[in-house]
């Protein structure tokens, strides 16, 4: 099985370079095959061919093969970049900030490295080494203070998925293929045609399809598998909710506070305050507000309206809403800060022109202000997502502790529960690798899609 996997990796490498200029083709294809083979061989070389062992499940086989192919793919991308550079066709690395890219160091090539070395050293010690250790740990059954650890290969990952290898492979592949197909369709059709609109709708659905595919791939529990599907769904709901609340609310408030009102400066300063509060404090604040026994919300609802508010922690919807409210509120100040800065740069001449042309407030907002803010929106989307993925642990821990029955236990909460509180280091590490991949995936997707639609104003 290992040999056929390696052959497949070599074929993948060859295919990767199949689209090169004809006169160099045979050599490139040969190199591609060799690189694909070598990189794929690194995986069993480092871990041992454990994924194909007799006791491994079929999902393990699939994951292991996927890991080998990923290694090949990464190596091939690097090789292609080297080739491209050698060919003189410098890849278009569009600079995000629109800064001028000419210039460069007129020194010996090692000088930049020397200047970077303090940063690199810190990164290696405090970021890369722990990251590599996390990957290693993720393949083990391990506990602090244990005399030994047990290698479980990819078992910590495969137990989070459904036990059906066909579904594990097919669903994500179909979803990704759909995304590529629809985006190709979108590019192939010309703008302002019906088929282009259709393609746009289809590509949106295709992206949603990825989330559906992942839903189908994560295990609902039972059969010795870990129920990760509920965690996935919860993470999705709370992340989307938090980011949407934080960004829409942030923009709305920033837009209002940006107007010329008396004491505007005071408002604007006060509005930023929630950001200076740590997630823990946000958790405590909302805990105090909504607590069914001692909370002010309960008291006021009863005193003023005679409503007996149910305990939010016992109701999945209320609990999730409370978490979204608390964590969305916490990031609100940050978003307002950036939107206020962004609004100052909305070209007033365009707005005035629009006023003269008779555009309504709403039209001015959607056609001029929003596009002008798109770089900030894009930046905030990335930071808000990162916040929602990683930093709402404390808020959840104070408000619900994952209640009711795990309905507010998002991925990061689950990682800490499993890896830290229960001391199951391997599983905790595996889940954090999963979150790591998710963040990389989301970020890549954002850079690909949002990047197309972001306008950077007068950059040139």
């Amino acid at each position, binding site marked *: 099985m290992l040999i056929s996997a390696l052959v497949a990796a070599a074929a993948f490498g060859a295919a990767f370079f199949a689209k090169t200029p004809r006169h160099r083709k045979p050599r490139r294809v040969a190199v591609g095959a060799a690189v694909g083979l070598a990189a794929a061989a690194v995986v069993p070389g480092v871990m041992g061919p454990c994924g194909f062992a007799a006791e491994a499940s079929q999902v393990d086989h699939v994951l292991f093969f996927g890991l080998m192919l990923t290694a090949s793919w990464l190596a091939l991308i690097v090789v292609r970049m080297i080739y491209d550079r050698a060919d003189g066709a410098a890849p278009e690395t569009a600079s995000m900030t629109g800064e001028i890219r000419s210039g460069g160091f007129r020194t010996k090539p090692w000088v930049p490295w020397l200047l970077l070395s303090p940063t690199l050293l810190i990164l290696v010690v405090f970021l890369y080494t722990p990251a590599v250790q996390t990957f290693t740990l993720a393949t083990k059954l391990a506990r602090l*203070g*244990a005399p030994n650890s047990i290698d479980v290969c990819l078992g910590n990952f495969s137990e989070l998925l459904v036990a059906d290898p066909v579904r594990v492979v097919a669903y994500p592949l179909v979803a990704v293929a759909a995304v590529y197909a629809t985006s190709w369709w979108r590019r192939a059709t010309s703008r302002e045609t019906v088929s282009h609109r259709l393609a746009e709708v289809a590509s949106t659905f295709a992206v949603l399809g990825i989330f559906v595919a992942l839903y189908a791939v994560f295990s609902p529990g039972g059969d010795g598998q870990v129920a990760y599907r509920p965690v996935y769904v919860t993470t999705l709901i709370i992340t989307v909710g938090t980011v949407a609340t934080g960004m829409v609310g942030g923009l709305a408030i920033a837009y209002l506070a940006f107007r010329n009102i008396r004491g505007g400066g005071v408002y604007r300063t006060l509005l930023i305050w929630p950001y200076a509060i*740590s997630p823990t404090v946000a958790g405590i604040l909302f805990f105090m507000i909504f607590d069914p*026994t001692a909370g002010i919300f309960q008291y006021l609802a009863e005193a003023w309206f005679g409503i007996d508010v149910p305990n939010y922690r016992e109701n999945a919807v209320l609990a999730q809403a409370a978490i979204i409210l608390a964590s969305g509120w916490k990031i609100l100040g940050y978003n307002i800060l950036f939107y206020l800065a962004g609004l100052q740069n909305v070209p007033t001449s365009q707005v005035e022109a629009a006023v003269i042309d008779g555009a309504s407030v709403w039209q001015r907002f959607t056609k001029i202000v929003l596009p002008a803010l798109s770089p900030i929106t894009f930046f905030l989307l990335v930071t808000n997502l990162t916040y929602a993925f990683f930093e709402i642990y404390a808020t959840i821990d104070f408000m619900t502790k994952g209640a009711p029955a795990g309905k507010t236990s998002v991925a990061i909460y689950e990682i800490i529960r499993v890896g830290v509180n229960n001391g199951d280091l391997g599983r905790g590490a595996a889940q954090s690798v999963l979150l790591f991949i998710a963040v990389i995936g989301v970020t890549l997707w954002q850079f690909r899609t949002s990047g197309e639609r972001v306008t950077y104003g007068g950059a040139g």
Partner: protein
Amino acid sequence: MRSRSRLFSLFAVLGLVVAACGGGTTAEPEAPAEAEAPAGTAAGDGDVTTIGFWVAFSDEARLGFTKEKAAEFNAKYPEYNIEVTSFASYNDVFDAAVLAVDSGEPPGIIHFFEAATRQALDAVGADGQPIFKSVTEAIGGRDKILDEPVVLDSVVDAARNYYTVDGSFYSMPWNTSSAIMFSNTDMLEAAGVMEVPSTWAEVEAACEKVMAMPNAPAGCITWPNHSWFVEQSLGQQGELLANNDNGRSGRATEVYLTSDGMLDYVSWWKGLADKGYYTYTGVQRDWDGTANAFLAQEVAMLIYSSSDTTFLTNSGKEAGFDVQASFMPYNGEKEYVGNLIGGATLWLLNGMDKKAEDGALAFMNFFSNPENAAEWHRITGYIPITKDAEALLQSEGWYDESPNSKVASDQLAAAQNTPASLGALLGNFVAIRDIITIAIEDILVNDLDVAERMAQANVEANKSLAEYEALFGG
């Protein structure tokens, strides 16, 4: 364009600074307490042995007591410096201790909880040596260390038996409690309940009356959804949680989450919740929420740890109602076997030199000498850990003054000394407790079938235990 990007970076830097200020202070354990030894002695004598004492308390009352006693010890023995460091939880203490052993700067004593006894016994450092050393062994039959009389022999039976593993009393008990019930007797009497209920059936009967009152409270009874109460109930019913006599005649390799005792208890619990008698705060291990509900008179009865007897009794008085403590209600259809302890002990780190080890042992015995143990009991409600401390409290007339404080000790003394009432020694107990708690929350919130859900939990718990045994049992 230029100015815009500069503005951006300014905000980014600002953001980082604010984030660092906001988030940084939360996760850090409290800084080591200042060495409270008299400065003069420390400076004059270069031979001061510093012994780290890592505790899992961070509240003023309990951490304050600890620091005060450490300072008294340091004043009495200038050649020693007991340095108290506070952590947020037992797990944090343990993890930090294991890592400190591996990095070569371990503390001398750590504070670790009962359910993790197996884990502490099994823990080894990177060099393969055990992390902890048996206190009995380290004392080696001495009846005095430095000037401190050894109090280990005077420790009350329930605690002694719990922490004795393979014939060796391993760690020095400190905060020890049991699960007891607190009743708002004013409310019960108003409902026509004159006697505090003692069995499940009596609780239900009392609740029926309480909830029938015209100004009935939100619920009748509550307790934290913590596996400890489940374990207490199994002990009462004489039911084992794990094989090999609850892991006491050999290593436990199987847990029983589907025993009759377990199903009866969880079903009774669910029944109370279904009738609206039991108030679930919605959070697992919710000590604060349940106590608040009781003190806000939203429930008439609270099953809780005796550790807060003093606090609950006084707070009830301040809120204008009488609090009566009583034994934890039991299943009246079965013979009562016994409740178990809860709490934590002090573990002695392995591999200290003779002087440091004696200092640590002397401190442990000083810390729980009759006067200190009695004081600890009075300010908290944890049981007086030694018989001598009990006798002292008795002679001072403390129990006549505050009868609630005696309930936990009496309850533990009433227990038969069987493996069931001692409680289980179990690997991965923290994770298994988590599995139990989650299952019960699932049952309470989502109205699931008790037997089915507990069977599922049983599979998970046994898997967890098997993995632990594969790592440690080998």
